[in-house]
């Protein structure tokens, strides 16, 4: 009897154990980094963060979480904000807008946060908006879609370079290279479609026309059919807007079809996984991104260079690999909030915090130098971008 019962319950127990184990892995993040709270008598300032620690954007959420935990320790060792320790409660949205929204409600209602960092993805960021507006809490998103700040909300700020910044930069470099006809490829997900729309809307201003337009779905495994269409057009370069592993497939398929056209990607390709995945097919691939990939591009005597090299060194020492651009976006989001808090007197409200974040002027971050205005909550300029080229598997500066 017992034997049979055991046999019946065994699988259920195994599965339950596994589920509990994986949940425990997720919820570790919740209680993260509230060290340093004991020494100071002052009450902690609590910030919420909604990040994708699982799901499609897990690879982005992980460096973001690493960065927040590392910088938080540093902030609290330096005495926090005017003597108040800072605490960040991190929630996983599983790359799901509905879960991002639920996490936001929890952060607002149960944790009572002063500001929220995130979400990792554009869709998740937009899903949080209703509750952000209802509670009147400032939000600093680390998602790259143009829509985050283009659909303007006074409460929402954004640290990655939005497509409306990167697209004109890329198109102007194409114009300077004498290219007038491009093939445009993008994924049908949020980021790719957003970039594709911005390219189509602005390309005319640079005397360039789109002679072939091809899309693919996130998760597609082969783009030779789309590229055969491109090959049959008279395009002089291919512009690719995608932040996933599909970019490496496009590069490899182009090599396979012996297409010699220059391939321009975007800041979504600023990841070691891209160069590794595409191998020698990535040679000559160009993409615009911020300066963190090669800190000397900030200018070695600049403040930005010192901030970036210090961050890269500490991150590399702690996590055993160099930070990517996503780590930088989280760094900027955290410090934009913390610096604003430092400038405010005791007992500030969330509305005052929002106003103070908007008054950010020449903040030297990793993504660039931020200056917010009443109508610009992205705060960077094309000066914060450089064009990279992949050469011998590594990023080099692509000088015009």
């Amino acid at each position, binding site marked *: 009897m017992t034997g049979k019962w055991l*046999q*019946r319950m*065994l*699988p259920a127990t*195994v*599965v339950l154990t*596994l*589920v509990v184990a*994986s949940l425990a*892995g997720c919820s570790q993040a919740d209680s993260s980094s509230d060290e340093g709270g004991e020494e100071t008598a002052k009450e902690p300032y609590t910030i919420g963060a909604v990040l994708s*620690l*699982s*799901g*499609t*954007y*897990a*690879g*982005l*959420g*992980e460096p973001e979480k690493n960065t927040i935990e590392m910088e938080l320790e540093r902030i609290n060792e330096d005495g926090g904000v005017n003597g108040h320790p800072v605490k960040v409660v991190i929630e996983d949205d599983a790359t799901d807008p509905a879960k991002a929204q639920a996490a936001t409600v929890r952060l607002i209602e149960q944790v009572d946060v002063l500001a929220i960092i995130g979400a990792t993805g554009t869709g998740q960021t937009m899903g949080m908006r209703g509750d952000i507006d209802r509670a009147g809490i400032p939000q600093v998103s680390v998602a790259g879609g143009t829509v985050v700040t283009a659909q303007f909300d006074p409460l929402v700020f954004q640290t990655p370079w939005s497509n409306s910044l990167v697209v004109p930069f890329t198109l102007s470099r194409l114009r300077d290279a004498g290219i007038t006809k491009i093939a445009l490829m993008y994924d*049908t997900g949020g980021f790719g479609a957003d970039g594709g729309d911005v390219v189509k809307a602005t390309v005319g201003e640079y005397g360039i026309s789109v002679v072939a337009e*091809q*899309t*693919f*779905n996130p*998760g597609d*495994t*082969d783009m*030779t*059919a*789309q590229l*055969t*269409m491109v*090959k*049959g057009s008279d395009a002089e370069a291919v512009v690719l807007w995608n932040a*996933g*592993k599909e970019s*490496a*497939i496009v590069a*490899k398929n182009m*090599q*396979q*079809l*012996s297409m010699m056209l220059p391939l321009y990607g975007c800041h979504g390709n600023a*990841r070691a*996984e891209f160069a*590794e*995945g595409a*191998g020698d097919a990535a040679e000559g691939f160009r993409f615009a991104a911020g300066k963190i990939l090669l800190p000397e591009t900030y200018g070695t005597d600049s403040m930005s260079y010192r901030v970036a090299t210090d961050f890269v060194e500490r991150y590399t020492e702690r996590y055993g690999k160099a930070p990517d651009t996503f780590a930088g976006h989280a760094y900027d989001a955290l410090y934009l909030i913390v610096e604003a808090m430092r400038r405010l007197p005791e007992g500030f409200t969330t509305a005052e915090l929002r106003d103070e974040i908007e008054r950010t002027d020449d903040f030297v971050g990793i993504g660039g130098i931020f200056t917010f205005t009443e109508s610009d909550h992205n705060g960077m300029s094309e000066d914060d971008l450089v064009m990279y080229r992949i050469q011998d598997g590594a990023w080099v500066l692509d000088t015009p």
Partner: protein
Amino acid sequence: MDSAALLQFAIAGLKNGAIYALVALGFTLVFGSTGIINFAQGEFFMLGGMLAVFFVRLGLPLPIAVIAGVLATAGIGLAFERLALRPRRDSGPLVLIIITIGGSMVMKSLSRHVFGGSELSLPAFSEGPSIVVAGAAIERQAFWVWGLTIIAVVGLTWLYSKTKFGRSMRACSLSHEASRLMGIDTARIVMVSFGLAAVLGGIAGVVVAPLTQTSFDVGARIGVKGFAAAILGGLGNPIAAVVGGLTLGLVESMSIAFISSTYKDVIALVLLLLVLFVRPEGILGRATREKV
């Protein structure tokens, strides 16, 4: 459109189609012996690629790492059947199908925790530039995809029609009860089917990883495609799975050539619905299926 371009579209379609076919074979195999749809089939695809990368990173040479990846996936398939499905085997198909869905979630989450969230790369099986045939380029890895698909389908057809084991599997699909009365060890048949389905999924996963990279979340999408291919061809027959896979791949690439890349998945799914409307049993499926 010139003939070289047309050939290129056909090659792209046949390459994707062969991948769908390998996954579809796994669906067919499990359906053939249990009458259920194994929604964890896509995760076997994911595990094959991820485990092969894991073994390469441990320092094993590529061929051994690839084989180890497939075998480890097979082990997980066997363990999944033994630990999660067998204890509930008398609960009816719906319960079993739901267990496979749960199993796929567990495998995906564990993979994310063990191997991380980033995409991983596996080197190509044979180095070198693509081979040009009549103006169309074929990458070397594509020959591995086709070769392994042919081996898989020939092997399975032989297993089904020529061996006692294969006949026992077919008997199981008709009636577990009757098979057991005839002296067939149905529990073993079901477990081996899951093991073989995991091998097929694993093979598809390792052979695709050099083309596309792999990550913990690739299973769901390929699972849907493979399932569609299996249904399109007709469940329960290896040849039908391959026909379904290749048809789906070709329709997708021809949609890009003649209509629009935006709608390729829509067109493929509309075709699937149309076929099911006219022939609910699939292109090569048998019209009548005896069910007890």
